[in-house]
């Protein structure tokens, strides 16, 4: 077993050594360095394109997915090794993808064979970029109140209405979407899960400008959009189960933001670099204490993620706790961004210009305020913990 793992590690190491371009072996500097793939994606460099192509062909962009759907077919131990070896050479992720982090797990659980064969391999290769159609103007925290009607027209559904807060809706090739297929049923029982090409006639997209000045979210409007019946996933009117399953993956993804990325300076290192020090410690005692409190929580959170993973492996899982991870991770990230602003002082106020990387600090700080709203607000997460973990009534 461990001999197998050792030879696996050797294999991974030598493959990475041969295939990971030098330019991809350093931490990302800005969001622009992230590779999202998809039909219209403009690669920043040939190295970025090659890295995706090679990792995709190997199935290592989705290392845990079964090989028959293009994935890497790895078990947990192998996965850990891949992560360690990638970290050892500071390899960037080859692909950022909602297809991998959200849709894929749902399709593997609820999709039929044809759907898995059709949709999963292009996700692994980064050829199709997916976006998520969940929230509506009157269905935010109360997501199950969504209304966008998909009416049965014999061989297809006809979709109307709109979606809002669709992440990267303007660059998604396809959408996975929650729609109302039974307006008369109780609100959780009339929802279905559908997939469609964003180029289908009748779809229009409008970016939303945020307080950060950036537009990572869009509104999406539907006017008599035709969706073939083969593109409906799972049972009709049972889409809420898929929605919830997928949300747990989304929450976990968002909660990782609470942790500092490997290769990036910690808050205290940054503070020691840019602030006044005295005998090897930060001169400002209050800020030092605030940073210490943050880093203590960050370390405790990282250990709790580690423990949760180990418990799942040992079959004693923390299970329903993804809501709490989402809550704590996003609150932690907001604190990090607040402290970074404090540490950088007047430099952090810059909004444009090369010196500030176009106001990256300020914009990231503002953007982070949304972390505890998107994917279910902090308050909704706490409701879920109270109800489903603590068993409190109401």
């Amino acid at each position, binding site marked *: 077993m461990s001999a197998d793992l050792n030879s696996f590690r050797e294999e991974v190491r030598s493959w990475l050594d041969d295939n990971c371009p030098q330019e991809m072996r350093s931490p990302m500097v800005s969001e622009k360095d992230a590779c999202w793939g998809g039909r219209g994606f403009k690669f920043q460099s040939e190295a970025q394109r090659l890295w995706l192509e090679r990792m995709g062909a190997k199935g290592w962009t989705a290392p845990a997915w079964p090989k028959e759907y293009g994935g890497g077919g790895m078990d947990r131990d192998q996965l850990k090794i891949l992560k360690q070896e990638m970290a050892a050479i500071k390899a960037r992720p080859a692909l950022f993808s909602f297809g991998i982090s959200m849709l894929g797990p749902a399709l593997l659980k609820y999709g039929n064979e044809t759907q898995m064969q059709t949709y999963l391999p292009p996700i692994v290769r980064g050829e199709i970029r997916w976006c998520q159609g969940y929230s509506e103007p009157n269905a935010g925290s109360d997501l199950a109140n969504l209304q966008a009607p998909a009416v049965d027209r014999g061989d297809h559904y006809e979709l109307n209405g709109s979606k809002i807060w669709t992440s990267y809706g303007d660059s998604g090739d396809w959408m996975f979407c929650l729609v109302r297929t039974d307006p008369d049923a109780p609100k959780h029982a009339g929802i279905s899960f559908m997939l469609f090409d964003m180029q289908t006639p009748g779809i229009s997209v409008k970016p939303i400008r945020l307080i950060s000045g950036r537009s990572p979210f869009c509104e999406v409007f539907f006017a008599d959009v035709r969706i073939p019946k083969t593109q409906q996933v799972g049972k009709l009117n049972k889409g809420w189960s898929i929605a919830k399953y997928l949300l747990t993956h989304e929450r976990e993804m968002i909660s990782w933001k609470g942790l500092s990325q490997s290769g990036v300076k910690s808050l*205290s290192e940054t*503070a*020691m670099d840019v602030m006044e*020090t005295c005998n*090897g*410690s*930060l001169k400002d005692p209050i800020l*030092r*204490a605030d*940073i*210490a*409190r943050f*880093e*203590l*929580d960050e*370390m*405790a*959170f990282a*250990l*709790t993620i*580690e*423990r949760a993973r*180990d*418990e799942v*492996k*040992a079959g*004693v899982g*923390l299970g329903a*706790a993804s809501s*709490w991870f989402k*809550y*704590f991770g996003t609150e932690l990230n907001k604190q990090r961004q607040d402290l970074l602003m404090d540490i950088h002082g007047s430099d952090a106020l810059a909004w444009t210009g090369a010196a500030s990387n176009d106001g990256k600090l300020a914009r990231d700080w503002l953007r982070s305020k949304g972390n505890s709203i998107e994917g279910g607000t902090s*308050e909704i*997460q*706490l*409701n879920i*913990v*109270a*109800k489903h*973990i*603590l*068993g*409190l*009534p*109401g």
Partner: protein
Amino acid sequence: MALVLNEEHGMLRDAARSFLDGRAPLSHLRQLRDDSIEAGFSTELWKEMADMGWAAIIIPEAFGGLDYGYTGLGLVLEECGRTLTPSPLLSTALLSTSALLLSNNEDLCSQWLPEIASGEKLLALACEETRQHHPDKVETIADSDESGYRLNGQKNAVMDGGVADAFIVSARTHSGEDPNVGVSLFVIPEDSEGLELEITELLDNHRSAKLTLTNVNLKREHLLSPLHEGWPVLRKVLDRGRIGMAAEMLGLSQEVFERTTRYLQERKQFGVPIGTFQALQHRAAVLYGEIELCKSVVLKALQALDEDSTKVPLLASLAKARCGQTAGLAAAEGIQMHGGIGMTDEFDIGFFIKRWRSLNQQLGDSRYHLNRFAELRGY
């Protein structure tokens, strides 16, 4: 090492829980208090605990122990935190035993450890001289003379000092302020001439002693640590104690939290259980998460002790700070959410905040360890 308990640990925990639930539930502490039992704990119960091997968990087999490791002892302490069962586990089985073991003094280990393991002897650690935790400030003096040492000074806050058969005492064998140079550890039998004890009953019904040493003469063989090199030993001893206390605070947090969430489900006001109110639900949910964090840091720290990792100091401060903070919150929320009845002596919930206050303060409170955490991380 995976951050999960193995099956054997699970069995030990279950055994500890069922013993404590049966023999020493919270009513046991209340009884000790009401009867003004002088030791602050039941010596009969300690004998039973020792018969189960609890006094011997970290003692090597060569000295009559079980050599079962820190994770095991941590689990027992965690369970004692649930029932608030007082015993010399921390003072004798963890702190003093660690001081003996880490000093590598074969003679003193042979003299004391077998009888600690069997529950016959109790030891107490005396390393504080100020109100605040400040173990590196040592003003007790040990002057060397032809037959041995003569000690003068005072020690505060000696846990279980009133019933100890001997004390492990830090003293200066070389003048100066740097604890790295010139501090040594001694084992002083309680019947030594010149040793005076003043015992105080604490808010959690444990007993603490103030030691006054006036020309206490000791033979050379009472020197425990290497001469002038007691501080590196004491530092490690303290980290073990801190992690053990964090484990006890983890158990305390879980118990007070479970009692409180049960109350939220049962207690009705305005015709509904008060647990339906979102203001209380959210606070309970936040507390749930805080306790999950504590479970992770305590287990990690205990495993680090078993692996003799270089990260022990950082993890000890992480665990003591985090658990001190969380247990304080859990105990305070326990009272607030119980309302008026939580303030009464008749009801048990108030015992938790008293024990928390004592555990949090001893061997450095959350603020002390937050500061140390920052120092160890280099800022």
